[in-house]
């Protein structure tokens, strides 16, 4: 099992946001997490990435059997966890090429591998950019600096395809994308996805799931997963809203 989250509780600034999350992701699976604003979706993603200020107060997270919460942020990345940010950070003065080359090389170093050949890196990068319909000029631009909202999201997926992690958590990578860009980005994610790796999509919209078919859909409300099902659950939510899920949860309780 790739990811196993058990009874996870987490706080931000002493306020409990996640109130006992359970989630299992196996290799080859695509999971979608949906839920109203402020329900804790990004908090979960941030917690998985090891962001400062997000504190696990209970439960556990196993990544490929190892305790994820004990690892540093960069170690998690080296172990194969990737988070596409809802709000990617701008880094003026650091080119995408330099940024990604450092990432690739530091991950390789972690696994005892030598540095990637510069030409090999460039060929790979250009290849992936072509797939994502990005101009290779972007390689020389500063990371996300002055990028449009859509360009930032596309850049996240570009990084995903370059780093080729074992588990990708995409936090609202679809929002802010026009229809064409959505298709391209979805295609990028689909190309990345294999039997060997897993994808967790955090989204508000069914339309992303039209392009990337999830094996499981979960509904997160007020820090708890209140409903899980197949991809038909997303369609149901689209029709009936989250109210329905909240009520159904009450019914269960």
């Amino acid at each position, binding site marked *: 099992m790739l990811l196993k989250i058990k009874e996870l509780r987490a706080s931000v600034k002493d306020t409990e946001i996640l109130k006992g999350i359970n989630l299992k992701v196996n290799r080859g699976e695509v999971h979608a997490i949906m839920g109203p604003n402020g329900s804790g979706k990004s908090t979960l993603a941030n917690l998985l990435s090891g962001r400062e200020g997000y504190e696990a107060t209970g439960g556990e997270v196993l990544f490929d059997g190892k305790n994820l919460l004990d690892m540093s942020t*960069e170690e998690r990345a080296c172990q194969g966890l990737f988070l596409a*940010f809802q709000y990617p950070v701008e880094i003026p003065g650091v080119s995408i090429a330099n940024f990604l080359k450092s990432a690739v090389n530091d991950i390789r170093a*972690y696994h005892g591998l030598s540095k990637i050949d510069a030409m090999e890196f460039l060929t790979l990068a250009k290849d992936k950019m072509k797939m994502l319909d990005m101009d290779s000029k972007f390689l020389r631009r500063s990371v996300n600096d002055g990028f449009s909202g859509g360009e930032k999201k596309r850049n996240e997926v570009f990084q995903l395809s370059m780093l080729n992690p074992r588990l990708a958590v995409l936090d609202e990578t679809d929002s802010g994308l026009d229809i064409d860009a959505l298709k391209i980005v979805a295609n990028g994610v689909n190309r990345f996805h294999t039997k060997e790796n897993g994808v967790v999509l955090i989204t508000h919209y069914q339309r992303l799931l039209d392009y990337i078919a999830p094996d499981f859909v979960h509904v997160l409300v007020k820090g708890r997963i209140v409903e899980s099902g197949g991809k038909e659950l997303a369609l149901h939510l689209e029709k009936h809203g989250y109210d329905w899920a909240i009520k159904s949860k009450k019914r269960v309780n």
Partner: protein
Amino acid sequence: MKDHNRAKSLYLSRIASEFDRLRDDLKKQRLLNGTRDTAMARFAEIGFPTKRHEKWKHTDIRSLFSCQFETAEAVSLKKEAIDPFLLLGDEENFVVCVNGRFDRKLSRISEEIIACSLAHAAETRADLVDTHLAKHLGFQNSAFVALNTAFATDGIFIYVPDHTIVEKPIHLLHLSDNERATAYPRHLFIMGRNSRIQLIESYHSLRKSPYLNNCASEIILGNNARVEHLKIQSEDEQAFHIAARQVCQSRGSLYSSVAIDLGGSLSRNDLNVLLDAEGIETNLYGFYLARGSQLVDNHTFIDHAKPHCQSAELYKGVLSDHAVGVFSGKVLVRKDAQKTKAFQQNQTLLLSQDAKINSKPHLKIFADDVKCSHGATVGELDEEALFYMRTRGISEENAHAMLRYAFAQDVLAHIGNKTARQRVEEIVMERFKEHVN
């Protein structure tokens, strides 16, 4: 306090007796003849600056007095000794100064420029030297310039004739090979009309020891002359580097300076530019990197005396440990200097709680039709950016280095010569990797 005073009076009497000892030798030189006594007398009047002097209030020079420096002796070096310091790999034009003295055997210069020992030029190009030397850089208010004027026996003289474009950069390599001594490099660079040159001035140490480099330079640009001037100060971390430079620009000329400070226990640069004609452009960039208990002080003065000129100034620095930075940038726009455009900015990254910057950008404007701005920022590395990089697997150490480097880029990108720029980038990156936090 008492100890300091004793050290200071000892140091002062040492300087006086040193001057007496060398007086006969100095008098034999044509260089600065007649000016030395005046300079020495002036030094005796003003003495060393203390923290009560506005321009020295953040820079305490008392540590200098505990080193009882003598005047540095001439040393001759083997060619291999300079190889590690060649910046461009295959310098075609280079001038080597050892302990402030021009070394003709080690230097190599192409035909079209006159670059030679200043002592030599005082004999052979008396016309030029007498017109300019010690005429622009005043010693009335500067103890260190006064001492340089009294003691300097050599330095570099460069004369680029009118309409001469020097294609290859000229590297002015300064090596210090002494212990507890003072060197007084004295430079005079005269650029003819429509001439063009790239200067790379660098300072390195061959020994780990305290010593003082007291440098003074005058640079004169003829009409439409274009000068790119890179200075790299990479002295030993026990050394003192105190340098004054006066630049005088004529109509339509361009002077672009990039000053990199990496070494020295105490380094102080006074850089003054006089824009005394129309259509002048001046760019001053600086980057300082200090750690341990290093102190790095940059004082610049841009004097807009005539209309239609523009100046841009950006000094950035990264300070860690207990390091102290000082930046004082004065831009004066005189009454006549209408349509002046002046921009000035100082930005410092503090990497530790104990590091400190005293920043004082200031504009004094007496003309009414001008566009001027100035400012200073002090900050830390962007935590969000660091985190983002780490989520991509970049080690904390590398993420720090990359962000500092990005910060430096705004300045380093202005180094015109590509090879020199890459070399400097490498040196800076190395230094960043050396001190994690």
